[in-house]
């Protein structure tokens, strides 16, 4: 599985890349803009990401902006619905309006921090990213 991680805090980044590394190759970006760039690059190389883990609070572009950009790019290329990359937003923001907005914009999973790893793994299985 090809994974893209966007996280600006070093400790979280280390933790997530260690955890996700178990399931596949994990590329690391530290802000929203880098994440979108990385996504586009992989798409054009013909090796798109299967899963993107996006932090919400990031420099340059925040998680919502990155999410919008990624879904817009997919739409432009005719990638729709279930074919799109699975995006998990991770953040300490847990307010209902934040979750609603993320879902509206096409985020697949919204996970509060600290991350419930058991549920996380269950979801990866539900999304058929892992067995």
């Amino acid at each position, binding site marked *: 599985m090809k994974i893209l991680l966007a996280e600006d805090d070093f400790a979280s980044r280390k933790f997530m890349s260690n955890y996700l590394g178990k399931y596949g190759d994990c590329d690391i970006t530290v802000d929203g803009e880098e994440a979108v760039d990385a996504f586009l690059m992989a798409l054009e190389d013909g090796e798109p990401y299967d899963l993107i883990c996006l932090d919400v609070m990031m420099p340059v572009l925040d998680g919502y902006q990155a999410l919008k950009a990624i879904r817009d790019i997919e739409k432009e290329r005719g990638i729709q619905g279930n074919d799109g990359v699975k995006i998990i937003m991770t953040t300490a923001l847990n307010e*209902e309006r934040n979750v609603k907005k993320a879902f509206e914009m096409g985020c697949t999973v919204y996970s509060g921090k600290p991350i419930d790893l058991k549920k*996380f793994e269950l979801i990866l299985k539900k999304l058929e990213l892992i067995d």
Partner: protein
Amino acid sequence: MGEDFNTDSMLDMFLYESEQLLETLENVVLEKKDEDCFDEASINEIFRAMHTIKGSSGIMMYENITKVSHKLEDVFYYLRESHPENVPHLELVDHVLEVSDFINGELDKIREGETPDGDESKIVDEIDKFLTRIKTGIEKKGDELPPENTYVEPEQFYIAPTGSESSKYYKVSIYWRGDTQMCNIRAYTAVYSLKEIVEDMQYIPEDIITNEATSEVILAEGFHMLVKCQATEEELISTIGETSGMDHVEIHDCTKQEFEMGFHHQEEDNIVIELDDKDKGSEEKKEKKEPTPGDYVIKNKESGKSKKLAKNQPKQQPKQTYISVNVEKLDALMDMIGELVISEAVVLQNPDLKVPGLDLTNFQKAAGQLSKITTELQDVIMSMRMMSLTNTFQKMNRIVFDVSRKLGKDIELEVIGENTEVDKNIIEHISDPLMHLIRNSVDHGIESKEDRIAAGKNPKGKITLEAKNEGGKVYIIVRDDGKGLNKQALYEKAKNNGLIGNRAMSEFTEKEIYQFITYAGFSTKEQVTEYSGRGVGMDVVVKNIQSVGGNLEIDSMEGAGSEMTLKIPLTLAIINGIVMQVGNSTFVIETNAVKEFVRIRRDMLVKEPDGEEYIMLRNECYPFIRLNQRYHLEESKTDIEDGIVVVLEHESKFICVFIDELIAEQEIVVKPIPSYIRKVQGLSGCTQLGDGSIALILDIAGLIAGEERK
């Protein structure tokens, strides 16, 4: 539950919404339990509730809740589509309540931060079998089954954070010894090691890495951090470790708000103002509250400061119908209004004003206006804390249903005056006592169907729960038409348990005998049932009621039923009192307790050989207390014809006290006797008068009890 919490968080929203749905569901079910079947409206309501819970629990991945609600939704789907006849109603009611209880149990676990690990398979199986019978019934009738109610998996999911509700906030301060070098670097080392285990932190001084001068600041004032983490104080201390030069480390708990205010005191906004989203679909609100992409871009990444986001927190005040306010703020407000009343008195009764010949007409007018406003302010503030008893009373429905069913009794609960409002504090303290009293009525009060028929009563028992406001007090009455209390049995049990010494039954009034059941260690039930009879209930009930200044009255008629009345004063803090002088001390008595003032002639005073005195008034004999003797006061009147006798009443008991003179009637703020003063019988508090002096508040009940015990 359901009162103060933040309904913005996804998890809280889920919990709140689901609980509301389940509460409504339970009410619907209990309302219709005696019917033959559910009507269309109820079926739809129950279906909708289960459908919503199924959906939201699915998104949040609480699988057991999803499965069980889907199963029940299935049943009601068939009921809605096919309208089968002869559905076993009581069995269905049981299943619905079972599901409701299961889900509530899981929701409780989630709220406490535990895993909702309940096993739903048994319930699902039972409902499945029930459903199969219904489906068979439909097919037998020759009707076609509607299309399957298949479960569609959600496409988006929300994972609730683990234990973030239990994040703790601390203020950590490190001090180094005076001769230590490079404290700024040492401070940074501490920050670095803490970063592993904290979720968020800020510190001051901030530029420890770049600015050497901070080392001196740290030496002088210490290095301070605000941290948010799951760790305990011990874990924090051991992570910081002990390096050379460190003098000591201080850790204090702090609140979330203190953490968020940080060291710079940017936003002093403490009151959490939430909106009761009654019209969540409203366009206007959506525009103001929706997060916009770009709000969360991190602007200033500076060391030591918490993340600054691009979005401003606009302080809008959209339309609101309800405001959820921190209860501590309300308490503070209550205290302040008390102080205001005292201050008002100090101003209005100021000795400076007692200049003879001063024309105070304008002043009096203004003072009157001031008094009016303060009284109004008082009323509004008291009313802010008032909540209706509806919720509390609704809970009783379920208890009556459960207990009566388990005991095989048929009982109806009648609720009157549930819209009566009482102070929030009172509700919290009487909820448990009420449940106990209701359980008692169901368990001990109401007889079995056979007994009732034999006695010529309606086989269906009736319990009435009534609330009303009267004379500054709230009355909550639990009345049953059961078998009542047997005075002889009560007397004997009390005697056998050594609770009343050797006194004969005739020495007690009826009411006093009934009160025996509130004594600790008393129980007339031979067997201890699951619900009552263990003898530890009623005395705790009475304690709880007394802790809010109320009391419990018991009345009964053997064969006809019993009546338990909770009498609770609406407010303890500010009362109308009469100020009086005895010697050089000032006392205050609650106006309600004063029956009359009389001047006594010497021949009305009766003195017993043992020194006790009584007053004969209109052929009635009252115990008599000389306050000057009781409290060893000097310079007071001793001749009975010089002073005034005040006749006081408390709960139908009377007592007379002797005072020198009356001073005034006024509103006083009751303050507790400070803890450094030992408890004195007969005094329940103190207050500050307009001239600044202190008056003691007489406790009538205490005085009367003191006399009786002699």
